[in-house]
């Protein structure tokens, strides 16, 4: 994308050094996940980035340990978790009814509801709503849905500047970067890098960083506070997502730690919230479960510092105009899949990222979407499909160790869905695409693997043939190479190959027991060490 960050004189905050230079210096492109390489290639590069690996290791291990402590405090965690999963499942089963109930409640409370089938439609709706206010700048609450649809880029194309106000999102935006974590989008940055980004880039977006900024956390937070305060006070339009929407009352809920979100939700005249349709819960009381599950799983807090709730509009308090954009963008397709639909329970806590050994080493960018880590590996191929090389590689971005499932507060069986989606990649099969049932073709590039799997299965289904192969391998064992050619190199580049034993178990059994199924001590056990 091109030259999109224009400076708009009429809305330019005072006391800044933005001036004429800023538009050009603020980066001529909007960072995007488009055209990223498949997961293995991206991860190959990140595993060699020692700084990145150290940052991620430190951050994920710290939060992982804290979460475990916070969860262990509750005796009824497993029951809370089951309740969370059950509420979400029931809601999803009757999603159409709850969404209509929500629409009526929001409308009755003075809000306006818009339905967006996909990212383009949602971006168009939001752009038009902002245009109608006459404003050219908006402040944003941290939101996964708007990252998913690439809203900032779409607004920039329309000449509207969106300011991220979450501290970590601000770091990402100033660095012309992409988020790499759901909760901590700048987790891949350390303090020194953040100081450099603030010093270099803040002046292009508004109030510059203080002279001689250090990398002390308090100093960095103060620099961000001063920079953002200006944005809050000038903003006429706020854009948010939501963690939950209550169907019975039409209430939206945003959960956060910094209070910056609350500024954006209360100070502007117009508030536009873009929310995935799966975020609805039936009743206010259901929040009791999720407001315990979410903070402990995500920030390891007993209760999150700021929980903002709003219901439509209120006279003389908060935004006077409220728009809710309900986003589908692949969610009803996901709902149509009886295994994959579990992914729609997700409350975006990021616990699965923090325990994932693959995420820790590959980093968030390798997942090529706003949703990294285990949840990204199951959600992105469902929302976007499995046809691109990147999307088809995501279900394989896991060793299936199950650590994600173990911590997930709504018990999403992520390994089960990963394998289910692998099947879709290599075998194709029935799926819902843009609301229509269809049979999708296997993704490209798996023909050789499919042939090998078929041959292996055939051999395994004929144990006599298997035995012939084993004997051949035993007889030629002295000639086995230490490194394999071709695809086998992926194994032998970093690991020694095992020595093939002189005889297989089958042959040993045959020789010592004659297939009788009985016998005393195993005779002729070969010492192989």
């Amino acid at each position, binding site marked *: 994308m091109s030259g999109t960050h224009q400076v708009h004189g009429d809305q330019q905050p005072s006391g800044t050094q933005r001036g004429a230079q800023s538009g050009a210096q603020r980066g001529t492109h909007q960072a995007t996940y488009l055209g990223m390489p498949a997961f*293995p290639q991206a991860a190959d590069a990140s595993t060699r980035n020692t700084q990145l690996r150290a940052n991620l290791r430190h951050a994920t291990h710290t939060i992982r340990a804290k979460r475990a402590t916070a969860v262990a405090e509750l005796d009824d965690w497993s029951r809370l978790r089951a309740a969370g999963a059950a509420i979400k499942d029931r809601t999803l089963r009757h999603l159409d009814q709850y969404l209509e109930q929500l629409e009526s409640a929001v409308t009755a409370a003075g809000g306006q509801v818009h339905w967006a089938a996909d990212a383009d439609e949602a971006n168009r709706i939001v752009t038009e709503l902002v245009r109608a206010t006459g404003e050219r700048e908006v402040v944003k609450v941290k939101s996964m849905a708007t990252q998913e649809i690439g809203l900032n880029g779409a607004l920039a194309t329309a000449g509207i500047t969106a300011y991220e106000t979450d501290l970590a999102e601000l770091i990402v935006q100033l660095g012309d970067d992409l988020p790499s974590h759901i909760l901590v989008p700048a987790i891949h940055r350390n303090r020194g890098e953040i100081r450099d980004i603030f010093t270099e880039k803040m002046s292009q977006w508004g109030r510059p960083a203080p002279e001689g900024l250090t990398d002390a956390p308090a100093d960095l937070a103060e620099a961000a506070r001063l920079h953002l305060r200006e944005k809050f006070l000038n903003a006429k339009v706020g854009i948010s997502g939501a963690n939950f929407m209550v169907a019975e009352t039409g209430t939206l809920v945003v959960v956060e730690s910094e209070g910056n979100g609350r500024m954006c939700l209360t100070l502007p005249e117009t508030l536009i919230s873009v929310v995935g349709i799966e975020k609805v819960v039936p009743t206010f009381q259901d929040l009791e479960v999720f407001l315990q599950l979410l903070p402990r799983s995500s920030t390891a807090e007993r209760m999150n510092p700021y929980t903002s709730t709003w219901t439509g509009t209120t006279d003389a308090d908060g935004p006077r105009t409220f728009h809710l954009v309900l986003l589908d963008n692949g969610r009803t397709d996901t709902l149509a899949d009886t295994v994959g639909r579990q992914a729609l329970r997700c409350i975006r806590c990021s616990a699965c990222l923090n325990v994932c*050994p693959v995420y820790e080493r590959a980093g968030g960018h390798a997942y090529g979407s706003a949703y990294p880590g285990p949840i990204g590996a199951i959600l992105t191929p469902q929302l976007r499909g499995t046809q691109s090389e990147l999307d088809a590689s995501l279900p394989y971005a896991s*060793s299936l160790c199950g*650590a994600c499932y173990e911590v997930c507060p709504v018990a999403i069986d992520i390994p089960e869905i990963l394998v289910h989606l692998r099947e879709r990649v*290599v075998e194709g099969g029935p799926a819902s695409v843009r609301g229509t049932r269809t049979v999708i073709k296997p993704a490209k590039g798996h023909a050789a693997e499919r042939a090998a799997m078929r041959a292996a299965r055939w051999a395994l289904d004929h144990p006599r043939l298997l035995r012939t192969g084993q004997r051949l391998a035993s007889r030629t064992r002295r000639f086995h190479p230490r490194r394999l050619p071709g695809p086998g190199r992926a194994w032998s580049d970093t690991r020694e190959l095992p020595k093939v034993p002189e005889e297989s178990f089958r042959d040993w059994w045959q020789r010592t027991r004659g297939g009788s*199924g009985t016998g005393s001590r195993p005779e002729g056990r070969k010492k192989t060490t």
Partner: protein
Amino acid sequence: MRVALFITCVNDTLYPRTGQAVVTLLERLGVKVGFPEAQSCCGQPQFNTGYRHETEPLLRRYATAFRDYEYVVTPSGSCAAMVRDNYPRMGAKAAAEGRGQELADAAAEAVPKTYELTEFLTDVLKVTDVGAYYPHTVTYHPTCHGLRMLKLGDRPRSLLAAVKGLNLVELPGAEECCGFGGTFAVKNAAVSAAMGADKARNITATGAEAVCTLDNSCQLHIGGTLARQGSAVRPVHLAEILASTEGDVW
């Protein structure tokens, strides 16, 4: 008690010692072990790579091969988990595809009789002291499928704790995956190798002579990485430790 050994394809081909150890151990405990030769692979590599339909003949073969037995014991947490967790899913999917109950019935037959070795010892035979002797310093890596799918809990440790002469040392970050993951080790070789390297370094740092697991497929990766790093730590399957006695240390 009609007990069969499910050796698994990896042990059959590359680690026959482990199978021999299971036979030795169970016979010492007075259990007569059978080995139906019609058995093959549980199908995990195919299934976990996405080839569910290619896996179906192997599910049927498993059910048929062990039809005459009450218990099927396997020295692999991950193959036991494949049978227990994934066979029923395969059956349900086949039924949903309009192919009847045949596969679901085969799965239902296979699941309740399948035991991972430590489950069979502690839950069925109800022993933790199997009379083993193993005069070595050992560290224990709980492999993921045993830990999180089968939920083996304390079983392996309580068995190890009862082994005479054995000095068990704690493995830092024990519950982190070693990075094997079947075809993951090749498809995502860089990440797999990075995970394996961290695991191997942690293992070597314990000062143990051997690293014990319940899965030789993970050992293939762990042992191969240890050897490439020049570490002297040997991989050993729990069955081999439990089979050892004062007169015959494996």
